[in-house]
C-alpha cells in the first residue's frame, strides 16, 4: 500500500528510484586477552590495519577530489590525517601493551572515550567529529578481520536510505555509483554525508520517522525533497504525477541557474536585495541555493513548540550562532517572539481576550512578562560573534516600548560583559512597521532605531480593518487599494528622511505585480519565501525602474483598486509583453 513519510528537506529535487537500505552491521567486540609475548606481534597487526586503512582513505579522498574538487575531499582528508595522529595511535597501542589485549578491544575503548568527549560539546559542528572517529576506528577494525565487509557497489539509480551513514562510506558510495537521493532517519544538517549530498545537489531528506523499518530493499520509492516527502510503494498514478513534477523541477532548475547568475541589478542598473524569510533553522541550509542574500526575517515562534529551547539561553545562542555563520557575510535578521495572537501555549498563561488581534501579543506580552524575552535577547547578543546579526521587534505601537526594550538590551549587554560572554560587535536594532500608528512614529526614531522592516500582511489588515482569512470580507484586503499604496509611499518617504533602510517582508514582497509596484515606488530591499526569489529576481532584472516610476505616477491619480491594478499590469505588459 502506498505510504508517505515526511521529514526535513535539505536539498531540493524529485527523484524516483530503487530503495537501497544501508545498515551498518556492527559486530559485538569482546575483551580478548593475549599472552605477554604476543603483545609485540599484536602491535604489528594493529599498525598493519592502520596502514591499510590509511591507504584506503587516501584512495577515497583522491576519487572524491577528482569528482568534486579539493573542498569536498577535505572531509576524508581530515579522516586520513586523524588516522595518522600519533596521540590517537599511541593511546591504542598503550592499551594493547598495558592490558595485554587484542587491538579490537583497545580500539573500542578509545572510541568510547572520544565519543563521550565529543558528545559533550554543545557545538554541533564539533560534536559531529565523533562520527569521524567512529568511522576511522571501525575501518581499522574491519581491516583487521580475516573476512572483510565489502560494499556492494553495482546497482545504479538508487535512493540511499539509512539510519545515518558514516562519511567515508557515503563518499565511497557517492563516487562509485549513481545515487539519486539520500534519506537519513537520524542524520543532521552538519553531518558529512549530508554536506556531500548538498555539494552534489542530490535530493536529501533527514529526520524521517522509522523509514528504515518500513522500506524494502530494491523496491521503487519516490523522494520529493521540495516538500520533504518520501513515498513508499507508489501507485502507477502517483509515479506519473511525480515524473511530471520531476520534469517541471528540472526546467525550473535550469532557468533558475541562469537567473541566479545575474547580478542583483535592474536593467537600468539600480541595485536591489532579495533575502529569505525562514521559520525553522533547517531552512537556513538551503536559502543560499535559492539565491537569497541572507535572511531578512527569521521568525522564532517555532521555539515555543520545543519547550526546552524557548527557555534555554545556551541552546538558542548556539542555534542563532550557527545560522549567522551559515549566511555570513550576509546578514541574519532575528525577529523576537511574535506570539499571543492566534495560538495559546503552555508557556505563557494568558487570559482569554475578546479581541486577540488587538490584544496582549508580541512585545506587549513580553514587556509584562519579560523573562522569555530576556533569555532570547541574551542569546542573540551572545550569538552576534561575527557581527552579522540584526535584532527586530514586532508589533511596536509607541515610543515608550522602544525605550523599554532598549533598556532591557542595555542591561543584558552590561551583564554579559561582566560575565565575559559577549564580543564588542554592534547589534543593529530594528522595528517592524505593521501597526498604522507606527508610520507617524518613524520621524522620531532617528536616534533610536537602526533599520525598519515592513510587515505588510499585518499592516494592510490593520490599515483596512480587515481579517484576510475571513472569506466574507477578504475582497477588501487588496494591496492595490489606494490607501495602502499611499501608506507605503509615506513609509518609504519617512524612513528615507531619517536616513534609514527598510526591508519589505510580507507577502507583497514575493508576489510579482506587488513586488514590481514596490520596486517602482523606490523600495529596494525585499525578504520573502526563498522559493519566490528566482521569480522576483527574473522580473527585477528584466525591468527598467525609470519606466516603472512613470507608470506609478499615473496610479496616484486613480481611485478604484481594480483600475489601479489593471492600469499597472497593462502598462508593464505594453513594454514587456512576455514578462508574466
Amino acid at each position, binding site marked *: 500500500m502506498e505510504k508517505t513519510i515526511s521529514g526535513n528537506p535539505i536539498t531540493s529535487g524529485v527523484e524516483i528510484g530503487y530503495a537501497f537500505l544501508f545498515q551498518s552491521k556492527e559486530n559485538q567486540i569482546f575483551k580478548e586477552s593475549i599472552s605477554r609475548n604476543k603483545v609485540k606481534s599484536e602491535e604489528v597487526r594493529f599498525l598493519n590495519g592502520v596502514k591499510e586503512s590509511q591507504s584506503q582513505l587516501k584512495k577515497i579522498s583522491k576519487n572524491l577530489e577528482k569528482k568534486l574538487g579539493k573542498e569536498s575531499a577535505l572531509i576524508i582528508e*581530515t579522516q586520513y590525517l586523524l588516522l595518522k595522529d600519533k596521540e590517537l595511535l599511541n593511546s591504542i597501542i598503550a592499551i594493547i601493551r598495558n592490558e595485554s589485549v587484542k587491538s579490537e578491544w583497545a580500539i573500542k575503548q578509545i572510541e568510547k572515550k572520544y565519543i563521550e568527549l565529543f558528545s559533550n560539546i554543545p557545538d554541533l559542528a564539533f560534536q559531529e567529529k565523533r562520527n569521524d572517529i567512529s568511522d576511522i576506528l571501525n575501518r581499522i577494525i574491519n581491516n583487521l578481520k580475516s573476512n572483510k565487509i565489502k560494499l556492494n557497489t553495482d546497482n545504479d539509480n538508487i535512493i540511499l536510505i539509512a539510519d545515518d551513514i558514516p562519511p567515508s562510506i557515503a563518499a565511497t558510495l557517492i563516487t562509485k555509483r549513481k545515487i539519486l537521493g539520500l534519506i537519513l532517519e537520524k542524520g543532521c544538517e552538519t553531518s558529512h554525508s549530508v554536506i556531500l549530498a548538498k555539494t552534489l545537489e542530490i535530493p536529501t531528506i533527514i529526520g524521517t520517522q522509522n523509514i528504515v523499518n518500513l522500506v524494502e530493499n530494491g523496491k521503487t520509492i519516490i523522494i520529493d525533497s521540495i516538500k520533504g516527502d518520501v513515498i513508499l510503494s507508489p501507485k502507477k498514478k502517483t509515479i506519473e504525477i511525480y515524473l511530471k513534477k520531476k520534469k517541471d523541477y528540472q526546467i525550473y532548475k535550469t532557468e533558475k541557474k541562469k537567473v541566479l547568475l545575474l547580478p542583483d541589478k535592474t536593467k537600468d542598473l539600480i541595485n536591489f536585495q532579495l533575502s529569505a524569510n525562514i521559520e525553522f533553522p533547517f531552512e537556513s541550509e538551503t536559502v543560499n541555493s535559492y539565491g537569497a542574500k541572507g535572511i531578512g526575517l527569521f521568525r522564532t515562534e517555532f521555539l515555543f513548540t520545543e519547550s526546552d529551547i524557548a527557555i534555554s539561553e545556551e541552546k538558542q545562542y548556539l542555534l542563532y550562532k550557527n545560522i549567522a555563520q551559515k549566511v555570513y557575510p550576509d546578514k541574519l535578521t532575528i525577529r523576537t517572539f511574535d506570539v499571543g495572537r492566534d495560538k495559546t501555549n503552555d508557556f505563557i498563561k494568558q487570559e482569554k481576550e475578546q479581541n486577540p488581534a488587538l490584544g496582549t501579543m508580541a512585545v506587549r506580552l513580553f514587556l509584562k512578562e519579560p523573562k522569555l524575552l530576556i533569555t532570547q535577547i541574551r542569546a542573540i547578543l551572545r550569538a552576534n560573534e561575527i557581527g552579522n546579526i540584526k535584532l527586530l521587534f514586532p508589533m511596536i505601537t509607541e515610543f515608550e516600548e522602544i525605550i523599554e526594550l532598549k533598556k532591557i538590551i542595555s542591561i543584558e549587554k552590561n551583564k554579559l560583559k561582566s560575565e565575559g560572554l559577549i*564580543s564588542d560587535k554592534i547589534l543593529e536594532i530594528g522595528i517592524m512597521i505593521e501597526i498604522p500608528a507606527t508610520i507617524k512614529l518613524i520621524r522620531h526614531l532617528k536616534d533610536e532605531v537602526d533599520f525598519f522592516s515592513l510587515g505588510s500582511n499585518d499592516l494592510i489588515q490593520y490599515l483596512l480593518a480587515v481579517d484576510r482569512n475571513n472569506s466574507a470580507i477578504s475582497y477588501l484586503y487588496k494591496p492595490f487599494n489606494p490607501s495602502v499604496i499611499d501608506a507605503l509611499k509615506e513609509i518609504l518617504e519617512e524612513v528615507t528622511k531619517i536616513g534609514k533602510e527598510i526591508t519589505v517582508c510580507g507577502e507583497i514582497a514575493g508576489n510579482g505585480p506587488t513586488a514590481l509596484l514596490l520596486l517602482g515606488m523606490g523600495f529596494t530591499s525585499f525578504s520573502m519565501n526563498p522559493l519566490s526569489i528566482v521569480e522576483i529576481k527574473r522580473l527585477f532584472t528584466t525591468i527598467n525602474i525609470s519606466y516603472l516610476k512613470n507608470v506609478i505616477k499615473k496610479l496616484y491619480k486613480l481611485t478604484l483598486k481594480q483600475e489601479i491594478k489593471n492600469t499597472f499590469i497593462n502598462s508593464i505588459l505594453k513594454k514587456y509583453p512576455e514578462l508574466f
Partner: protein
Amino acid sequence: MVEIQTEIINKLGLHARAAAKLSHLANSFNAEVSIVYNEVRVNAKSLLGILTLAASVGNSITVITEGSDEQEAAATVKNLIDRKFDEEK
C-alpha cells in the same frame, strides 16, 4: 617556555581544516607546542587533540611552547591564528 594569549578570529573557529593546518605547523618545530582553552590543555601536534577543544570564533586561547625553537614556534602559531588560517580574505 613561551606563553602567548590570542583570540580565535576566523569565522569557523578551530574546525577540521584550521586544526589540520595548526597541527601540521606545530609538527614542524622541535619544541613542544600546546594549546590551552577552557582550562583544558592539548598537544597542538595532535589534530584530534585540537578538535576536542571545540574552540570557536571569539574564544581566547593560550599557546604554550617549550623547547629549542620555542620563540619561533609561538610566534609562527600565533601568526597563523591571527591570519585567520588564510581562510578569509
